[in-house]
């Protein structure tokens, strides 16, 4: 889609201004129902679009992303614009600087339409934890779009932006991509700078694209990846234009592993299972070798995640204390005799949501004196185990295939009462974050439920920093 739009732009068949207005029109039409956007930047976007049109008119060479309208998850900072992270504690907070990914997209002259909804601080799998609104799935508005990047996924699926940036800590790009029927890429840990992303769990968080196709995801990934001095965990990458490496239709050298454990778990929906099996057949027909494999430690993945992640959350969210930024009871002046600690206790109590508090407390407990070895250290060891298992597996195979999510989109309200049940939505996606490997969700078909076609995603996981093989396998699948 991006390439076609780009061609039309440089051939002056359309202008970016027109394209951008068209997207705002469709937002105006559909978003009151879907509620994907938290905020829009119409003037800002149209100014940028006109500037790109000017460049094209002057015959200047422009980037592939120039003039292409996109949306940004509202936990990524754009200087001068509000950024809420889906939390009341950051209501009215204005980002003082650009995230590195934003700086990079600005250099490409991409057009930012607005900021999209998410579960508060990216903690959730449905956007129901957003303090502002619940985004609806464009395929059935009684259902969730997935999360936490549910706003971005719904916006792409409903034609309210050409592509979106999201973030993925335990599946937050791939699971909503699966539920909304689009492509979502979680890059290798360290491939994309996290500077300017509001941190949730720093050893898992990665920014990545949500897009209409693997090629679009590749284009965006090429632009946003690479080492950044402002994120010491970002890595030097060979500068590649991933989009130009696609199209290797011959995948006969490709060896794909399918973990048997993925199909023995009780929670896997029959319709999803069926579509994943069909995908396996398709890859075999295309010439890939599909082998059964085993990842026994995967059984510990979700438990490992639900220790390490809250520990990191409790530390990262300590900064929201009502002192330097964000909402604070200090502003309210209701009680005059408050001391400093009251500001912490009351601001956090009032402006943080339930799931966020739950995770902060869980992490605080797991890291507290006497429990550290039992929980945190133990989980860091099982994390080692899981990573080792992947290292061994990738000596024999190139990719791992399975479902992205255990079920298609679930009903709004269906899982909000029981946090553990919601956590199970991430069962297939968390392992990639635990091991730090890249993974992509691509549409595998749909199942019919209550007269609605609900999309189902297929997940591919690849070797560390081998996004090329991953994207190519996704591209080949899409185009055959």
């Amino acid at each position, binding site marked *: 889609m991006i390439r076609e739009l780009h061609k039309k732009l440089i051939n002056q068949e359309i202008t970016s201004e027109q394209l951008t207005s068209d997207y705002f029109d469709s937002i105006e039409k559909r978003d009151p129902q879907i509620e994907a956007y938290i905020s829009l930047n119409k003037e800002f976007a149209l100014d940028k679009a006109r500037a790109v049109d000017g460049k094209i008119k002057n015959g200047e060479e422009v980037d592939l992303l120039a003039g292409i309208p996109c949306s940004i998850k509202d936990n990524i900072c754009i200087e001068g614009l509000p950024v809420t992270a889906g939390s009341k504690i950051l209501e009215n907070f204005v980002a003082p600087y650009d995230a590195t990914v934003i700086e990079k997209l600005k250099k490409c002259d991409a057009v930012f339409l607005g900021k999209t909804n998410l579960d508060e601080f990216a903690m959730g799998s449905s956007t129901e934890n957003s303090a502002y609104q619940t985004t609806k799935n464009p395929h059935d508005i009684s259902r969730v779009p997935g999360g936490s990047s549910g706003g971005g996924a719904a916006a792409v699926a409903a034609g309210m932006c050409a592509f979106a940036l999201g973030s993925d800590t335990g599946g937050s790009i791939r699971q909503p991509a699966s539920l909304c029927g689009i492509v979502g890429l979680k890059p290798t840990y360290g491939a994309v700078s996290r500077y300017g992303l509001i941190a949730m769990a720093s050893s898992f968080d990665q920014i990545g694209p949500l897009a209409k196709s693997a090629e679009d995801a590749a284009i965006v990934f090429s632009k946003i990846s690479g080492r950044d001095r402002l994120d010491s965990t970002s890595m030097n990458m060979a500068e590649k234009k991933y989009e130009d490496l696609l199209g290797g239709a011959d995948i006969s050298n490709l060896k794909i592993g399918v973990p048997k454990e993925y199909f023995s778990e009780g929670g896997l929906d029959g319709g999803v299972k069926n579509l994943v099996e069909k995908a396996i057949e398709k890859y075999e027909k295309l010439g890939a070798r599909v082998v059964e494999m085993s990842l026994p430690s995967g059984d510990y993945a979700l438990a490992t995640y639900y220790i390490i992640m809250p520990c990191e959350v409790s530390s990262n969210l300590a900064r929201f204390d009502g002192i330097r930024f964000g909402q*604070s009871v200090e502003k309210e002046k209701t009680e005059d005799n408050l001391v400093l600690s009251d500001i912490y206790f009351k601001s956090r109590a009032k402006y943080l949501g339930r799931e966020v508090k739950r995770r902060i407390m869980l992490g605080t407990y797991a890291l507290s004196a006497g429990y550290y070895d039992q929980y945190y250290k133990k989980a860091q060891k099982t994390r080692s185990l899981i990573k080792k298992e992947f290292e061994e597996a990738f000596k024999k195979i190139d990719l791992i295939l399975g479902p992205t999510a255990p079920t298609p989109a679930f009903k709004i309200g269906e899982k909000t009462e029981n946090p553990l049940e919601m956590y199970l939505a991430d069962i297939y996606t968390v392992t990639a974050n635990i091991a730090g490997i890249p993974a992509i969700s691509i549409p595998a078909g749909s199942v019919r439920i209550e007269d609605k076609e609900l999309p189902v995603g297929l997940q591919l996981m690849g070797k560390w920093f081998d996004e090329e093989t991953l994207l190519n396998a996704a591209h080949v699948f899409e185009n055959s």
Partner: protein
Amino acid sequence: MLSKSEVQKIANLARIEITGEEAEKYSRELSDILGFVEKLNEADTEKVEPISHITGAKNVTREDKVIEASDETKERMINNFPEKKDRFDKVKAVF
């Protein structure tokens, strides 16, 4: 099972004020999750080192050089203070 008073203690460490009713709810929910993660005790990690960094990065350093933020950035940071006096962040007394 986490008791209500343990939950109050954790909330205190986390600097979050909670009511007695909330403590009861959190005690149930946190106990459920802790019960779930007990699963890790089955894993044999006798000979396994805890992971330090997932892609193996070690001692990443950079030049110790100050890069001045733009005036706009500085003003924006100051404007984000909940309470301020001139260009200072105004806070309550510690005691």
